[in-house]
C-alpha cells in the first residue's frame, strides 16, 4: 500500500446538515451519505466561520478564520494575499498530484492555487451551478483513473446540485411532497421571496412550470430535498468507482458543505444568508478504512470549517503550518484523543447582510454592522437549548447576557484583527455588498 493516502475533499454547496438522515432528518434524503457516516466518523456540530461560497471555501482551504484571510464577502473586493497557506499547494509539495473538479477558480483566481489539473464541466452550461453530479463524477473518475499506481492524489470535487435553482431529475418526482397543489394561485406564502432579487429570479425562471407558478413552499423544500437525494446518488457512484478501482480503503474521503440553506426560516427563502444555524451549521463526515478512523463515531463538540485543512494535512503526514485558526481532528477521528472542540465559534457574513455571530453550546448572539433589509434588530440573542430554531430574541429579556456576549465578541474581533495585522474590520469595509442591488430591485 502507498505510504500516503489519497485524499478526496467533497464540498456539497448549500447542503444543510439537518436535512440529512444522519443529522436527524426524518425523510430519506441521504441513504448513501448516512451509510458513509455509519462506516466512518461524523461531527455533529460543525459551523462555518464565514458564509457564503467564496469566503467559506477560502476558510476551508486556508484553515484561517475570515478575519485572518480577509475574504469576508462573496463577490467582494478583497483578494487572498499571495503567500497565504493554501491546502493544495502544500499537498503538491508533499508529493501529491492535485486536481480540482470545480468552477471556483473562474470567480476568484486563488481557488486555482496548487492544482496541477483543473477540470470544469460546468463550462458546458451558461450558469455553472447547473452542472450535475453525473457530469462532475464522469470527469473526476476519469481523472483518478489516470493517476499512476503508487502516486497519492488529492481531488477536490465541488457539487452544485443542492444549490438553487432546484431542478432535480424528473424521475425523482413525487419524493418528499405530501400532496397539495404546488401551483395554487391563492397561496401567497412565497410572495415575501419576490422582494429579494434571487427570489424574483426564481419566480421568473425555474418556478414557472407548465402548470403555473410554484407557490407552495413545502413543494420548494421537497425540490431541495430531491436535489440532496440526487447528490446522494452521485456520492454513492463516486464511492463505488473507488471500490471498483481498488483504492477505496486507502482513500481519505471527507464530505462537507460550505454553508447550509434557509428554507423559509427568518423570512429568508431558499438562500444562504442569515447567521442562523440552518445556514451556518454544516455536515462534516469522513471515511478512511486504512487510516483506522474509528468507525461509527459521532463527535459532539463544536468544530469549525477551519479545522478541515489541518486535518487533511495531518492525514497526509505534512507539517501543519503555524498560525492557523483551525486544528486537526485526525486523532479524535482515530479515537486516539478524546473528543474536544471549541467553547465558542465566531463567524460572519458580508454579502446580503453585514453581521457577526458568536455561538456557544447554549447561546447565539448576532451583531449587525449595518441594518439589514429584513428589518431585524441590530442585536439578537437566542437560547439554543430552549429555542433551537432561534425564533425568540432574548436581547430585551436578558440584556446583561447580551452585553456580555457583545463585549466578548468585540474583544475577539479586535484581537484577531490585530493578529492579522489589519487596522480595519473587513465587515465594516465591505459592508453588505448586495444591499444596493437589493434596494434597486425593491425600487
Amino acid at each position, binding site marked *: 500500500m502507498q505510504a500516503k493516502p489519497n485524499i478526496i475533499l467533497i464540498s456539497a454547496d448549500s447542503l444543510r446538515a439537518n436535512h440529512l438522515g444522519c443529522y436527524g432528518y426524518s425523510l430519506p434524503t441521504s441513504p448513501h451519505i448516512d*451509510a458513509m457516516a455509519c462506516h466512518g466518523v461524523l461531527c455533529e456540530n460543525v459551523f462555518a466561520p464565514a458564509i457564503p461560497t467564496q469566503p467559506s471555501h477560502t476558510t476551508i482551504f486556508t484553515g484561517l478564520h475570515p478575519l485572518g484571510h480577509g475574504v469576508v464577502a462573496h463577490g467582494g473586493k478583497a483578494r487572498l494575499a499571495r503567500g497565504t497557506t493554501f491546502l493544495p499547494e502544500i499537498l503538491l509539495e508533499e508529493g501529491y498530484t492535485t486536481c480540482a473538479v470545480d468552477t471556483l477558480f473562474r470567480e476568484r483566481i486563488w481557488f486555482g492555487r496548487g492544482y496541477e489539473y483543473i477540470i470544469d464541466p460546468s463550462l458546458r452550461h451558461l450558469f455553472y451551478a447547473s452542472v450535475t453530479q453525473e457530469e462532475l463524477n464522469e470527469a473526476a473518475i476519469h481523472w483518478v483513473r489516470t493517476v499512476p499506481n503508487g502516486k497519492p492524489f488529492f481531488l477536490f470535487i465541488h457539487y452544485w446540485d443542492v444549490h438553487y*435553482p432546484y431542478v432535480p431529475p424528473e*424521475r425523482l*418526482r413525487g419524493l418528499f411532497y405530501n*400532496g397539495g397543489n404546488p401551483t395554487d394561485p391563492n397561496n401567497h406564502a412565497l410572495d415575501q421571496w419576490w422582494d429579494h*432579487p*434571487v427570489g424574483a*429570479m426564481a419566480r*421568473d*425562471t425555474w418556478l414557472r412550470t407548465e402548470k403555473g407558478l410554484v407557490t407552495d413552499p413545502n413543494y420548494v423544500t421537497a425540490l431541495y430535498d430531491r436535489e440532496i437525494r440526487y447528490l446522494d446518488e452521485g456520492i454513492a457512484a463516486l464511492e463505488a468507482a473507488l471500490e471498483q478501482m481498488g483504492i477505496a480503503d486507502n482513500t481519505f474521503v471527507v464530505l462537507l458543505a460550505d454553508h447550509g440553506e434557509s428554507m423559509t426560516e427568518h423570512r429568508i427563502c431558499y438562500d444562504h444568508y442569515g447567521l442562523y444555524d440552518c445556514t451556518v451549521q454544516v455536515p462534516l463526515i469522513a471515511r478512511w478504512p486504512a487510516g483506522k478512523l474509528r468507525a461509527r463515531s459521532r463527535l459532539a463538540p463544536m468544530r469549525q470549517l477551519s479545522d478541515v485543512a489541518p486535518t487533511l494535512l495531518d492525514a497526509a503526514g505534512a507539517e501543519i503550518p503555524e498560525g492557523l485558526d483551525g486544528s486537526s481532528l485526525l486523532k479524535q477521528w482515530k479515537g486516539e484523543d478524546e473528543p474536544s472542540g471549541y467553547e465558542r465559534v465566531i463567524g460572519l457574513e458580508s454579502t446580503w447582510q453585514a453581521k457577526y455571530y458568536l455561538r456557544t453550546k447554549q447561546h447565539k448572539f448576532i451583531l449587525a454592522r449595518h441594518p439589514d433589509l429584513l428589518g431585524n434588530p441590530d442585536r439578537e440573542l437566542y437560547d439554543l437549548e430552549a429555542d433551537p430554531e432561534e425564533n425568540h430574541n432574548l436581547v430585551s429579556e436578558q440584556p446583561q447576557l447580551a452585553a456580555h456576549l457583545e463585549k466578548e465578541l468585540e474583544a475577539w474581533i479586535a484581537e484577531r484583527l490585530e493578529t492579522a495585522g489589519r487596522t480595519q474590520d473587513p465587515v465594516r469595509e465591505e459592508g453588505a455588498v448586495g444591499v444596493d442591488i437589493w434596494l434597486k430591485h425593491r425600487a
Partner: protein
Amino acid sequence: MEQEPQGKVVVPDPSADNPPAEPVPELRPEDEAIVAERLRELGYIE
C-alpha cells in the same frame, strides 16, 4: 462523546407513488441565460 450513528441505509424507490399532477420544474436554456445574467448583475458570478 461517541454515540451510535442514527444513519439509515434503506434506499426507497423514488419512482413509487409519483403523483402525476405535480409540475416538473426545469431550467430552460432561456431561463438559464436569465439566471446567469441576473447573478452576474448581483456580483455572484463574473
